[in-house]
């Protein structure tokens, strides 16, 4: 052993040794990553959390012009049954006025029903505007009091620090007046 470990060995032995070091080190690194990954991944949403990932909502009792909040995956979902005037207003806004340009049409499946995750895209507060008497912000939609973000009647960001429009969750109409979120 002492002979092979001797640094005075020929060039050939040196490169072979370097190669073995690299190989052993590389294997060790791969092994460590493989061992750490399960620990990291255990912190991701578990199967039961993911299983809660869809909710059905009956839209029947909601009246024209009414806003209702339901929960989905621990977050509020804003449901807004919009009047014709509100829809027309939202559609009349030129795209150049929007920090995060998106047409009203692209944000709804049926123009009357605006369905969004009610979480401010800035830092996660719940914007005001669902209850009567709430401030609606300068654009008549929603207002986040945390750092002053104003959303319009299509839930699009118009003013304030939030970078994006309120997110539209994946949903589908299972019946005329029933949706499934998630």
């Amino acid at each position, binding site marked *: 052993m002492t002979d092979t470990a001797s640094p005075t060995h020929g060039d050939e032995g040196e490169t072979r040794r370097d190669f073995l070091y690299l190989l052993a080190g590389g294997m060790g690194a791969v092994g460590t990553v493989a061992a750490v990954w399960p620990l*990291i991944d255990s*912190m*991701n*949403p*578990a199967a039961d*959390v993911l299983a809660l990932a869809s909710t059905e909502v009956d839209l029947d009792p909601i009246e024209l012009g009414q806003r209702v*909040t339901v*929960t989905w*995956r*621990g*977050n*509020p979902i804003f449901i807004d049954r919009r009047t014709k005037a509100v829809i027309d207003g939202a559609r009349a806004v030129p795209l150049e006025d929007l920090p995060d340009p998106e047409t009203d049409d692209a944000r709804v499946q049926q123009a009357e029903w605006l369905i969004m995750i009610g*979480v401010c895209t*800035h*830092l*996660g*507060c*719940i914007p005001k505007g669902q209850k009567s008497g709430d401030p609606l912000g300068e654009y008549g939609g929603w207002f*986040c*009091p*945390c*750092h*002053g973000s104003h959303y319009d009647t299509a839930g699009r960001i118009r003013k304030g*620090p939030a*970078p994006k429009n309120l997110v539209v969750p994946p949903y589908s109409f299972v019946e005329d007046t029933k949706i499934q979120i998630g």
Partner: protein
Amino acid sequence: MSDFQTTNPVIKWIEYRLPVFSFLDHAVGTKYPTAKNLSYWWNFGSLAGLALVIMIVTGIFLAMQYTAHVDYAFDSVERIMRDVNYGWMLRYIHMNGGSFFFIVVYIHIFRGLYYGSYKAPRELLWMIGVVILLVMMATAFMGYVLPWGQMSFWGAKVITNLFSAIPLIGEDIVIWLWGGFSVDNPTLNRFFSLHYLLPFVLVGMVVIHIWALHQFGSNNPLGIETKGPQDSIPFHPYYTVKDLFGMGVFMIAFTAVVFFMPNAMGEAINYQEADPLVTPAHIVPEWYFLPYYAILRSVTFDIWFLSAKLIGVILMFASILILLVLPWLDRSPVRSSKFRPVHKQLFWIFVADCILLGWVGANPAEPPYLYIGQAGTAYYFAHFLIILPLLSVLERPRPLPNSISEPVLKGGGTAMGATAKPMEKA
């Protein structure tokens, strides 16, 4: 380490097998020579150690009564307050202990800034201290979530959401941090686990901090190295006694708050249980995070492809990380501000700027606070990135004394004879 003298046979027996007594004697005892002119500003290191011990002891007993579940956490803390024997006391000590820990550590840090304790050869000691501050902040942040009040929940939500500013992977990181799609039970559980763990990590880091300290010993108000035995006195009994005295003063202030105004530094709304669907009107962090919160919110404009949100987050972290490179920003060879007439004044302006930022952080992010916050943030970074490097070349320091004992002994500084004479003042 056979230089340890004792006649006690038990200590002798142990010392022979495990030289722990001589170890302590070298670490904090008679064999640790310390600069003899340390002022009371040097008490805050040992006070931070005391605060850490207080937090760990009360925390362990709180954990025996606390339930980390979203349905029970708030009630279990109320039970601690009402039903558990002395539970109110444990909680009030732990709650205010966090605040006092930060008071002490901030004074400790500003002491370092004033006397240039971060300069060679103590750079690594200083950098370990900065990491200790970061771990402390993480611990306090997660602890504040545990009672599951409104501010616990919304503070956690807003702060974890900061990570969503990271391009591309931000959203996935936040979901990973939460273990779900919002701050919820998995989040509370992991925060409790980490809140229990990190203080012990802190203990380990404090040991390394002190290890690095002992390599060159404490800095001192004059900022010059000890040049021989005439400049130093043994740590024990001189500084053990002085530290104990400081602890007494600290405990008077601390217990006064714990027993007479325990909620003065807290937010009343945290006595309301967390409601994931209702955000409180004003979200404010604990006072010790306010300056960083002000920096975070001061950015309201995008720069190129960087969103305001991302820049705010980067600046907030940078405001602490910049301390890591401070030893290389301030190149002035003179440590103590006593001999740096300009730095001395700019130091106090910097302190005022930090307090100003704290005040801004407690107020809503709108004019005029917003503009004050932006100016304060700009000055904060200018102090480190422009003022200190310039000052290193432009300032003319006053002449340094030849040794620590020279100004005291009136020229006797070079004599070796004065060793045994403990001097009271420097």
